[in-house]
């Protein structure tokens, strides 16, 4: 049974992966065509999103929740500088000016760091809350079991035939 279930899971995951590969390919084609027009943007993104790339490589989780959390914050930290580039004009000098500004690195990497902090703190907090809730539930359920035993006797917990219960 377990083997069959594992096989089913693999089969279900395969098309998802194919779709992911397809999307990545499309994105690459799009970027290939768009590169002559948005080259400075791509350079800025490539350098500014280095923490996300690092997270992507070290995140072994199948869901890539860590990458998602760091990536989202990293992107958010980079977004003001991308807007500045688009507002001032997309050229290499503007792009280098942004890169030379230490604030750019502080904000971009700081946002990525906050993302890492969230990844570290939120699961721990969730574990504490969830376990407390489960323990409360277990206590309630155990009290229900005792109540059933009081009402029907200890045989309610056994699997004896009804005719043998007296």
């Amino acid at each position, binding site marked *: 049974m377990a083997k069959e279930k594992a096989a089913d899971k693999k089969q279900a995951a395969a098309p998802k992966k194919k779709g992911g590969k397809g999307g990545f390919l499309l994105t690459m084609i799009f970027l290939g065509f768009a590169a002559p027009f948005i080259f400075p943007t791509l350079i800025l993104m490539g350098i500014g999103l280095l923490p996300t790339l690092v997270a992507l490589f070290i995140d072994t989780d199948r*869901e890539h929740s*860590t990458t998602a959390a760091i990536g*989202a*914050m990293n992107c958010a930290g980079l*977004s003001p500088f991308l807007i500045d580039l688009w*507002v001032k004009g997309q050229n290499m000098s503007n792009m280098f000016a942004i890169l030379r500004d230490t604030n750019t690195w502080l904000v971009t990497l700081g946002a990525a760091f906050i993302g890492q902090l969230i990844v570290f703190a939120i*699961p721990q907090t969730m574990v504490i809350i969830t*376990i407390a809730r489960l323990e409360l539930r277990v206590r309630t359920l155990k009290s*229900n079991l005792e109540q059933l035993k009081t*009402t029907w006797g200890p045989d309610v917990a056994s699997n004896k035939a009804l005719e043998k219960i007296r």
Partner: protein
Amino acid sequence: MAYESTSSVLQGGALAVGQRAEILPSVPIPELNSIGGPAFAARMKGVEGSSDLLGILCNTSLPPRLDTVNSMRGVDHVSLLRLIDSGVVAWPDNNRYYAFAFQRPLAPRFKTSIDETHTPMREDTINHYFVTPLIGALQEMQRAGIVHNGIRPTNIFWRPGTAMAPQLNECLSVPGGYGQPVLFETIERGLCPPIGRGVGQHSDDCYALGVTLAMTFLGLNPLQGMDDASILRLKIERGSFAALVGNHRLSASHIEILRGLLSDDARQRWSGNDLDQWLNGRRLTPKNTDTGHRASRHYDFCGKEYWSTRSLAAALPTNVTEAVQIIENGSLEKWLRRAMDDDERANNLVEMLTVISAAGKTANYEEQLVARTCIILDPSGPLRYRGICVMPGGISSMLVETVMSGGSPQILAEIIANQLVAFWVETQQDIKTELVPLGQQFERMKLLIEKTTYGNGIERVIYELNPGLPCLSPIVASQYVVSPRMLLAAFERLAASGNRPPELVDRHLAAFLIVRDQRSELLFEAIAAPESDPRRGIGILTLLSEMQYRYGPDSTPALAQWIAPMLEPAIQRFLGKALKEKLRQLMREAVQRGDLSAMLQLADDPRRIERDKQDFTAARMLYLNIQKEIALCESKIQNKELVVRSIGKPMAASISTFLAIIMVFAAILRAVWQAIMGSM
């Protein structure tokens, strides 16, 4: 049935006998004591100061003939004590007995001892004042289907020399034939002990009348001083008429009636019709019979010479081993053919031997062989088996006496199981058709005696064969329960007395109710279950609650208290603790009311039981589901990494994404704001 009524204590200490009479325990009449019990004054109910009736209290261990009571009520003859009423009385000694109220006899006993002599009377006087009324009484009893079994001078109330008709004493207080001296019994009945004679037939009463008349005509007991064995031997050797009358001088008409009544062949013996003809002056000549037919050559058995089949039949059971030898080696058959010239009897013997040998040598083969040989040699005689000598009709009363005296009924059970009665019936000649129902009854008894289940076996046979017998169960023995409708009241009295027996139902009681109340045998199989089995208590309650519904009394709190602990296993069947407690409370209330039906409904409501089971099954399922959920929760608690992966990290990603969206939105707003400010 009329004899079921029970008594209550009336004014002046009188006890009600049935509905119409009352007996006075403080006024005994010893001179009128009967074989069945002492006599007391009695009177019609409500007639204060009178004692014109005779009460007989049946306080011996012998059962009265209750099955004859209803027939006796219909008899009204000047020469028979009229039965006024009967019923169970609660005697001052705290026991219950059966009692009869009869018309009080008008004269003293004709004789106080059978050896008492009197002056012979004139023929016409004795015929008119003694013989004629007694013949009338005999005919009346024949019409009513009653056999008296107690006709003898000491049991007749008559004052010689008066015009008053003689009166026959009662015959109901003891089993048929009990108390009758051998002198007044036919040869075959005389061979049996008193309890094994049975009720017999009309011809047996005719014989007893013959002996009574012979003594009255002669004025003495012609066989005075002889013991029972000598009397029987003389009767067998010489015939009853010759033994009793001998060389005494009697009138021709008296000799004629005595010869007719004292015939040893029941087929030839005068009956009521013959006596009627004799009274009308028609002279009948009794035929000679082969009874007492002598062999041309004697048969030598155990060193003694036997000249007749009847005397040889009486001797064979005394030495079974020797008897089996002469039966199997053919010497008896040869004697029957050559010396007795009786081929039919010899053929019957050979046929019987063939059949019984083909069946194989089973237990008690030798006794069976001898018993059947005795039946062939003396067809009208009693059954002789393993030391017991009993008429087929006497098996019933002998069974009762054996059980009541604490003896083993094993031999009687073997007589029934070996179908000796059916064989006896087959061997009879002219009166065979009249005896067929008897044979069929005992064939049915054989089937019942072989059933070992509760309520069957020998106990059931006892009640089947004795229709008027009270319940012999030790549980209700002191209560004299004659009918199922008296049982519940008896139980209530026992329960209230505080001296109740440990058991409520035993094999006797079960058999009594199966026979008298036509109750299902299956019910008693349930009652026979072990104490822990709920079927037992429910079975008992089903039995008694139905009786309460049908016969009353409506409230039996003491009995209910007695039964209540037996119902605990039935209540334990319920699975819900709260339901059990509620049922126990309701049961206590029903017990206080003495309502057996309500108790049964509480203990055995199929819908309640089914609902309880369904609820229990649902509770069990719920228990399992809760256990599964607890296991799941505990596994989650144990596996924190799973919580982090499944809940924590997705939650962190969600929060980060949410914050990022806000930051991107803020960056766009900042750029838009700078653009607006720049253009101004």
